[in-house]
């Protein structure tokens, strides 16, 4: 099993009612004035060297590294590394990513044809969904944003259910009340999507707190994007999760864009992972296009959550190959070459196909067959809706 070391930031504060400064003061030999502060807000040491008094900023060191298991061509960086996933699981991962990708293509076109009113694809981000979903238990609660349909598919949401919600027909359990892609499933523990961004974020630690009290042995995963991370709700969520010891995984899909707003206009620091330590939250950055790496970090995060009742922040770097939605034409704000690079040279599905082929469970014919099978399944459900 891979031993994953997360960027550790443990900062426990215990506050006794009795005030006893002597136990905080240093023993002999300490230069005067450099003792530990007694301020309630910080018990660090004093220093006359201002350089000691400044937290690290991201300029200079290139930022926090991205954890990956395989490269862009599906080769393991560390050949000894083995995540101990069965062939069955690995194939399910691949098939589910392909199914999502196929459904996205067909439903996107359906909107273009006027059959459904609206749609959002997850092109390029399939590994963030499947990698994370596969590392969770079915009774872990999911609070998502709107670009996480693969998590539902992994858990067993059917194509029919997807179609019913998108069409808003009489079979939609939400009774046609919401726009397409606002999925929800009580059975699959996936809270219904709402359009306002980041509102799910403070709710997730609340739900996690309830799970903790009920000793359910489960955690909550909360998905959000690089844009939603700017909302006040995101800040509140992380602060609450940390101070109230909530077993919640904050999973950020940093796909480079919030509609047309690139990350350069969204934040000035080192992405979202760098914010975690500010809250006292264990954090890690991962290559979001590497389904195995995503699996690995979520599995480790889940263990921390459930065993220690602490939140974990995961920032999965990825790329939004598709437009923001059917109401968007991203050629208005980014080059087609850029999109093409990610689609052709570093796509989670083709990367994983390479990996599987190297493992010997997969080949070109199987890939073509799978594509065809997905197509047929989706079209069948599509016609039924």
């Amino acid at each position, binding site marked *: 099993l891979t031993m994953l070391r997360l960027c550790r930031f443990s900062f426990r504060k215990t506050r006794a009612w009795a005030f006893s400064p002597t136990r905080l003061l240093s023993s002999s030999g300490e230069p005067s004035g450099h003792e530990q502060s007694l301020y309630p807000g910080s018990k660090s040491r004093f220093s006359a060297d201002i350089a000691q008094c400044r937290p690290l900023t991201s300029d200079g060191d290139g930022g926090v590294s991205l954890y990956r298991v395989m490269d862009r061509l599906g080769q393991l960086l560390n050949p000894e590394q083995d995540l101990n996933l069965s062939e069955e699981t690995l194939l399910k991962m691949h098939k589910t990513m392909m199914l999502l990708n196929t459904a996205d293509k067909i439903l996107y076109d359906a909107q273009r044809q006027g059959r459904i009113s609206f749609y959002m694809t997850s092109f390029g981000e399939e590994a963030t969904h499947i990698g994370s979903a596969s590392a969770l238990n079915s009774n872990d*609660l999911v*609070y998502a944003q709107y670009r996480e349909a693969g998590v539902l598919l992994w858990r067993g949401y059917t194509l029919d259910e997807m179609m019913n919600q998108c069409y808003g027909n009489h079979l*939609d*359990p*939400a*009774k046609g*009340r*919401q726009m397409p892609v*606002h999925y*929800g*499933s*009580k059975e699959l523990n996936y*809270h*219904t999507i*709402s359009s*306002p961004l980041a*509102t799910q*974020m*403070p*709710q*997730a*630690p*609340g*739900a*996690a*707190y*309830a*799970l903790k*009290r*009920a000793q359910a042995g489960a955690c*909550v995963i909360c998905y959000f994007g690089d844009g939603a991370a700017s909302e*006040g*709700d995101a*800040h*509140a*969520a992380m*602060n*609450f999760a940390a*101070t*109230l010891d909530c077993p919640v995984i904050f999973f950020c899909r940093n796909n480079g864009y919030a509609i047309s707003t690139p990350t350069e206009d969204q934040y000035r620091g080192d992405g979202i992972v760098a914010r975690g330590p500010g809250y006292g939250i264990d954090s890690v950055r991962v290559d979001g296009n590497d389904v195995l790496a995503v699996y690995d970090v979520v599995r480790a995060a889940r263990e921390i959550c459930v065993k220690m009742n602490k939140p974990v922040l995961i920032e999965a770097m990825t790329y939004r190959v598709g437009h923001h939605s059917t109401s968007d034409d991203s050629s208005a704000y980014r080059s087609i070459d850029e999109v093409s690079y990610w689609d052709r040279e570093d796509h989670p599905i083709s990367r994983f196909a390479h990996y599987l082929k190297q493992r010997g469970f997969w080949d070109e014919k199987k890939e073509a067959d799978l594509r065809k099978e997905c197509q047929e399944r989706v079209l069948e459900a599509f016609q039924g809706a």
Partner: protein
Amino acid sequence: GSTTQKNLVQSVTDALDTILSTDSSAVVFGEDIKFGGVFRCTVGLAEKYGNERVFNTPLSEQGIVGFGIGLAAAGATAIAEMQFADYVFPAFDQLVNEAAKYRYRSGSMFDCGQLTVRMPCGAVGHGALYHSQSPEAYFAHTPGLKVVVPRSPIQTKGLLLASIRDPNPVLFMEPKILYRQAVEDVPVGDYEIPLSRAEVLKEGADLTLLAWGNQVHVLREVGQMAEKELGLSCELIDLRTIYPWDRETICESVSKTGRLLVSHEAPFTGGFAAEIAAFVQSECFLNLEAPVERVCGWDTPFPHIHEPFYVPNKYRCFDAIKKLASY
């Protein structure tokens, strides 16, 4: 049954204690809750039920309500406190876009009905802009939420217990001026007062006086003045639940008296009296002897030194009665 003398604060504590002792999933949280709360509504609860159930949160109203929604959606009874109603606005999105719509948007697959948000509201003599507001109208405009305002300790305990147990998110606004001023013999046991049911406090034939919270007491005095000085018999009603409101009781009363005065501290324009007036004129038009009178806070922010001129005091209300009676 047996009763003990309690003020409004103690009635709140009593209700919370009752819930915490009978519902193991219940938790009470907000800013400064642990030591007892800035108005002492949660005194003794953390000691009695532990820090896991009665706890402080960071200073963030959007966080408090969001967290509460999550708790409730996961099956826990979540009782959140906003330190002042004036500070509920950062949580407006969570309340209006999330709490109110949680059940509807999921086709009833999910809900946060176990959420209750308490907050002190209303004029207190020196609160000014940010410690005096009555925000009920903003939330009465939001289907999916319930809004409740008690007038007294007995009402508070019963309505709060009903609100917490109501399977919908409820905003419970406590008139802070009554926290210590209002003292009653409150029943010791567990009892509920139904939501969406107005209470006729005094029957009358000539005029209907309608208010909620502290303003009920102002109108009671005004009604006595009207009886003594104008020989008018006034029917006094406490609305209690602002939304959904008891249309039947109000319309029945107005159909009988033909004259309605609604009074609230919140500003005149768009205040909840406007909704009541619109509905009443539509339903009871032919029974009305005069247009509905609204005596409210002025359309300005709530001032400090000018408070006595801002609030709908008894003289302004009495003037309105004269106008109604002589129309």
